[in-house]
């Protein structure tokens, strides 16, 4: 039996399938043109050692606690403001610091206390709530923010990578793509796949969007691979997704943000440094730096000027090294912010000090502010959200408090 492709297209147009079920084929009305400001959220899974990233060398107790190298010594950290110094693996970010496009927010945490479980800590960080004793929420704070974002479309918010990113879970539409979900098909298979999908509008819409993204993500959609070679490609992609694929993720994020996207999230793992942490932590910090630098380079100067990047983690790590040269799960930690929209070049902190008595449980940096307040202020500045909406819906129970003036 042979039928022309035109016949299929005509036929499929007659099929009355439920279009409303697919966000991709539901027309979106723009209540207002989306703003130009952009927010990138990077979730650092595993608990980043904020004290190693931005080292409080101005604190008299620091040297005895960590025996750390002095700033600007050979291989030592890089002085930021006379009180804090940046881990040497992040040297690539110093030009951003000098351009006032980089900030550290120190001695902050979520409201999570005492248990120090990654699992619960990340749930709380992404749900954006004060505690889990009454059960976790089903949605994430970034999605709740989107529900107040004026003129949201299907391409406004992106979850990038194969991480489920609970922070973006919820009722507002979120586009999703893992650059490692790579498609490589023969030209004939592409055409036939498009044809087959025409039987069902929801499938057809998702397929054409997938082909569009896959064709624009840097490596060609059309190829002539055998199934075995495709299998090898899938293996390589899986390995790439596990390994240092941050630059690839960041480049894809930047590509979307240059187009219709305004909000994006992805995650970086590798922070759970319980033993001999120098090398693994240096690598992880280097990957975070490379993600930020890739974002800046790929966004281009104009979009970068309207962008804020915030990297956050579930909790900090112990002030002292453990017996194996690593650090254990702690409480207070740090956030890193970057972007041309920032009033940067500052370490924003109400520093609690590192004296034994000042520590949380005599072991952890004492958080002096809820990190949700800073992120709330960031979103208020970028997207004009009302304080009441932030305090009641996006971050229920948070007190925004004074404006830390994070943005220009």
């Amino acid at each position: 039996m042979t039928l022309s492709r035109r016949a299929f297209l005509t036929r499929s147009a007659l099929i009355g399938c439920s279009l409303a079920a697919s966000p991709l084929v539901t027309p979106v009305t723009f209540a207002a043109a989306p703003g130009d400001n952009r927010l990138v959220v990077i979730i650092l899974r595993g608990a980043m050692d904020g004290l190693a990233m931005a080292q409080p060398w101005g604190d008299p107790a620091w040297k005895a606690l960590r025996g750390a190298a002095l700033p600007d010594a050979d291989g030592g950290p890089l002085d930021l403001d006379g009180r804090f110094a940046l881990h040497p693996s992040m040297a690539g970010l110093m030009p951003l610091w000098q351009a006032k496009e980089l900030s550290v927010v120190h001695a902050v945490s979520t409201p999570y206390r005492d248990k120090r479980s990654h699992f619960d800590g990340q749930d709380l960080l992404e749900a954006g709530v004060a505690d889990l004793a009454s059960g976790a929420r089903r949605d994430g704070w970034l999605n709740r923010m989107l529900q107040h974002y004026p003129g949201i479309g299907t391409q406004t918010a992106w979850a990038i990578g194969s991480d489920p990113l609970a922070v973006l879970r919820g009722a507002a539409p979120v586009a999703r793509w893992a650059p490692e979900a790579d498609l490589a098909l023969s030209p004939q298979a592409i055409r036939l796949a498009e044809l087959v999908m025409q039987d069902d509008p929801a499938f057809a819409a998702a397929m054409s969007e997938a082909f569009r993204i896959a064709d624009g993500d840097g490596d060609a959609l059309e190829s002539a691979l055998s199934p075995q070679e495709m299998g090898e490609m899938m293996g390589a992609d899986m390995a790439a997704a596990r390994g240092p694929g941050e630059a690839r993720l960041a480049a894809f994020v930047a590509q979307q943000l240059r187009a219709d996207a305004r909000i994006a999230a992805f995650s970086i793992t590798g922070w759970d440094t319980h033993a001999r942490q120098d090398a693994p932590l240096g690598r992880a910090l280097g990957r975070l730096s490379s993600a930020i630098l890739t974002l800046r380079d790929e966004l281009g100067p104009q979009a970068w000027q309207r962008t804020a990047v915030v990297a956050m983690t579930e909790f900090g790590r112990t002030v002292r090294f453990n017996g194996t040269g690593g650090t254990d799960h702690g409480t207070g930690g740090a956030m890193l912010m970057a972007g041309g929209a920032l009033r940067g070049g500052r370490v924003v902190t109400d520093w609690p000090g590192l004296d034994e008595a000042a520590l949380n449980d005599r072991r952890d940096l004492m958080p002096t502010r809820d990190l949700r307040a800073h992120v709330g202020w960031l979103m208020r500045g970028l997207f004009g959200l009302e304080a009441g909406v932030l305090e009641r819906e996006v971050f229920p129970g948070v007190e925004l408090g004074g404006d830390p003036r994070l943005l220009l």
Partner: protein
Amino acid sequence: MPAFDPTLAEIRFGCGLSPNIAPAQSVAAMLATLQGPDLAAARHPIEPFDTFRARIVRYNEQGRLRRDSRGTAAEKTALKAMRVMNKQARQAQMTWLGQSLARCVTTQAPFRERLSAFWADHFTAQGKAALMRRAVSPYVEEAIRPHLSGRFEDLLIAAVTHPVMVSYLDQRGSVGPNSPRGKKSGGGLNENLAREIMELHTLGVGGPYTQGDVRALAELLTGLTFNPQVGRVFRKDSAEPGPETVLGKDYGGDPARLTDIESALRDLARHPATARHLARKLAVHFVADMPDPALVQVIETALRDSGSDLSAGYAAMLAHPAAWNAAPGNVKRPFEFMASALRALAMPPESFVPLKEKRFREYIQYPLHLMGHSWERPVGPDGLSEDDSAWITPQGLAARLQWALSVPQILGGTLPDPREFLITALAGRATPAVQFAAQAAESRADGVGLILASPAFQRS
């Protein structure tokens, strides 16, 4: 009026069509497959939690050895032993995913596999620490699978008091504030399990309960915990003293007993709101995102009037014409999609279950993850989405297409002729577009893959 159809039964309520397994020929025959011995489980075994528990005991012993021998060679030996045990559990978890697929491929009782997955998702749980994280399949094998067709209350009790659920929903740390242990340690109540029992497992989110009922059930649940040495335990010294009033009825008192918790769970299981919640969930899962209200109503009535007999609920669903609407229904979720593809290809389990871990992850676990289902790593206790739109995303569909075009050939060697495979996999559902693609494809792998990726195959 549409009625039972053996082909549709396999596609919608089973694991898809198979070239060498005949479908059940009536609703009665389908229901009968739930009653006999669990042949699929016997053929493709998964370790029950009670066996898995021994792994935890051995792991904890090494953990103690390690702590007691800091700085000596014994510490290193213990650490190494723990790493080995971790790796073995991680590999076993992949083997059990393979066994779960194998059951779907070879079973003559496919409705049982679908129900097992449905209830495992309804009672989503994952252990939180170390080896417990790998114990999801053992939990399902022990707490869910034996109770698929009996009374809902037995399933509810087995699932929510199970060590894996107790770990997942923080019941382990919940202590009655006025219990001996609470007074000594200052520990307190955690409402997580109580809330999810009412919201997700029984009454449903719109159900007739208040915050006061959640708190009362949480107080009643205190004492329920687990100990790796014995499994589920009830610790009287953690139980909040006195009776608790849940939905207007008093439970328990002094001394606190596990049976009081079970009584409250039985009443919740038989509550009319629970029948309504479960009826809707079954209809949405098996039939359509927006099911015919009449279908939901007959399931609800059957569950309520039978004292939550699950088989009565299934029988009502399968007897209703709305269940047999011939138009393609829900989008298969990633596991169902993959399992039905392997079944249509009659893929021998030996070609995927024993794969080395790295290969298994490449061909099975990681593609599932890209399709949107991170196997045994739930995002929340409400489990996987029932909405078709959650699965037919650009990324999810790309992953399904790429998998369908490549992995069957890698696993299977010789693939069927696409023109024959059309009949095997789709029976009467092959549209002209799929027929055209099957014969126009450049290779068998492409032809077979396009049939598997077609909407007609991806919907049930």
